[in-house]
């Protein structure tokens, strides 16, 4: 089987005159965590619903695990989905819930029981398997939902806002599970979330949607450089060595170095112009400048990189699209 598991080509969904998704194209491969980003109403959930055959596209094509969009039954067998704000039957236990879904995928009663028990253990709910779902916390429900999305050992797992409403510990647990799905199962994870710092950590590729259209896509570095984010850094050194540090930094013509009026021991470093298409080149330049400072024997009391995060790129491209 080819390593490409998700391929969307000019996917479009209209509701009457309103366009929910317009000409969305991207690909994702096995073992990859693919970030589907965008502000509220950007078309992320609609894109997931199209790819999981819950909705029919107005135009465009897609394939999942090699199955064309017309083979909806095969696609449903190949995907696992955690819908946004998924509901759970309050009167079922976590174990019953997973066993029911496992059986819907054709597993016998005995195998469904085994799969349910293993998945509950994998998401840390084995001790609550026979508790009613109504007694679960939000984080536990999200983990149960992720376990349900894995009952059929899917090739592609779609997780729509899996960390929504979770505390930091719950978010970390869910992100750890997501890493495990991609790594240990070699599955593609399509992750829709607003947690951009976490996306930066776990996603190998991202696509940013706005008003139903792809604004930018690629690796995190490519997206940042496409957004032409101006990177800057703050460097704090001992006050008596500031002039020496400025002399060292003068060897980097692409950098503009200024001194903060209110904190004379702090230097601001800014790239004169962003390096389009250079991936993480801007941070390379900053790192080289930092290395030169330390090589000159100047102690670095503080160093903070600013302006080159995915969140900055996200805000820039989505606000530009609005403008």
């Amino acid at each position, binding site marked *: 089987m080819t390593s490409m598991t998700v391929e969307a080509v000019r996917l479009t969904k209209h509701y009457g005159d309103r366009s929910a998704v317009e000409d969305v194209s991207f690909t994702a491969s096995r073992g990859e965590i693919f970030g589907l980003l965008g502000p509220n109403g950007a078309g992320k959930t609609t894109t997931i*619903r199209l790819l*999981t*055959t*819950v*909705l*029919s596209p107005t135009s465009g094509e897609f394939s999942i695990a090699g199955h064309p969009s017309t083979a909806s*039954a095969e696609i*449903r*067998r190949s*995907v696992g*989905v955690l*819908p946004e*704000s*998924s*509901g*759970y*039957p*309050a*009167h*079922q236990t976590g174990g019953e819930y997973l066993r*029911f*879904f496992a*059986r*819907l*995928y*054709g*597993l*016998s*009663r005995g*195998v469904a029981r*085994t*799969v349910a028990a*293993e*998945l509950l253990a*994998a*998401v*840390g709910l084995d001790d609550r398997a026979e508790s009613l779902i109504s007694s679960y916390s939000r984080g536990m429900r999200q983990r149960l*939902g*992720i376990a*349900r999305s*894995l009952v*059929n*050992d899917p090739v592609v797992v779609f997780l729509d806002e899996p960390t929504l409403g979770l505390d930091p510990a719950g978010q970390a*647990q869910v992100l*750890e*599970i997501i890493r*495990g*799905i991609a790594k*240990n*199962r070699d599955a593609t994870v399509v992750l829709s979330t607003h947690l951009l710092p976490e996306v930066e950590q776990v996603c190998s590729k991202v696509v940013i949607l706005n008003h139903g259209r792809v604004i930018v896509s690629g690796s995190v570095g490519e997206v940042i450089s496409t957004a032409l984010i101006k990177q800057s850094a703050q460097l704090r050194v001992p006050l008596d060595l500031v002039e020496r540090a400025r002399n060292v930094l003068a060897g980097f013509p692409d950098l503009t170095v200024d001194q903060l009026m209110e904190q004379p021991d702090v230097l601001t470093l800014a790239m004169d112009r962003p390096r389009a298409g250079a991936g993480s080149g801007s941070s390379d330049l900053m790192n080289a400048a930092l290395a030169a400072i330390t090589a000159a024997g100047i102690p670095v009391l503080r160093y903070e990189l600013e302006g080159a995060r995915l969140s900055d790129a996200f805000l820039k491209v989505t606000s530009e699209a609005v403008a």
Partner: protein
Amino acid sequence: MTLQVAPPDVTTPQDEAVVDRQSGWVLVAEQETRDLWTSGRGLILLFLFSILLSGVTYLTSTNQALNFLEQRESVNLVLQLAVAVGVLVTLVVSADGISGERERGTLESLLVTPVSRRSIIAGKLIAALTMWFATFGITIPYVWVLARDVGILGQALALGFLVGTLVAIGLGSVGLLISGLCNSNKTSIVASIFLLLILFAPTQLPSGLPQGGFFDVLLRANPVASALAYISSVLVEGQSWTEDLVLLITPLLTAIIAGGALVLAGERLVKLTPGVNAG
């Protein structure tokens, strides 16, 4: 706590040896029925019905002042009550079937499984019908008490079961259609109950009112009223089962048309947004 999710150490669904051939609709019906009864919804409705039935049976069989009915009429009254309440609860449960899942956010998880949407509908209809079967089951001892002395026990039970099941299938299907088309669960349930009230209205008209051709047409066009009239004609008037069979045409047509509409529109009806337009 280890949160590494490795593939399950079991055979995958694709393996023929472990694939259970049980159809999706059976699994959905099983689960829906279990939810209906273990959640307490079904039991509460049944409990209320049994109190109502006990009161009616007690009055018709023991109270000399109110016991104005002939024994056959008492059996007829209890059976009609069972059909009426059984159909009502079946309709209410089926009216919650699709719109309720939408509102609770549980429908999408079901839609992404390989189970067809027609199977989901079939499973939900069967689960709703268990309300009718349970209602009828509760009625059996009461009918036994009233009918044993007049020798119509078997006939009354068979008649009530067959006619009631036919009406319950028809109106249960109508309830699911309404549920698929309505924007909210509340609207779906209120619309269904309103429909049932309209259907019951002719059965509550005083017998002294002048009855003519129009009333007859109204009665025959109404699946509930005509079904109850058929039960009455066999049990009270002593007609044979085939004599007034024409009264069952509307209940039968309702079941066929509503059931057929569910089969035909099923794939477009069970979706995240109400209506049957392409989703």
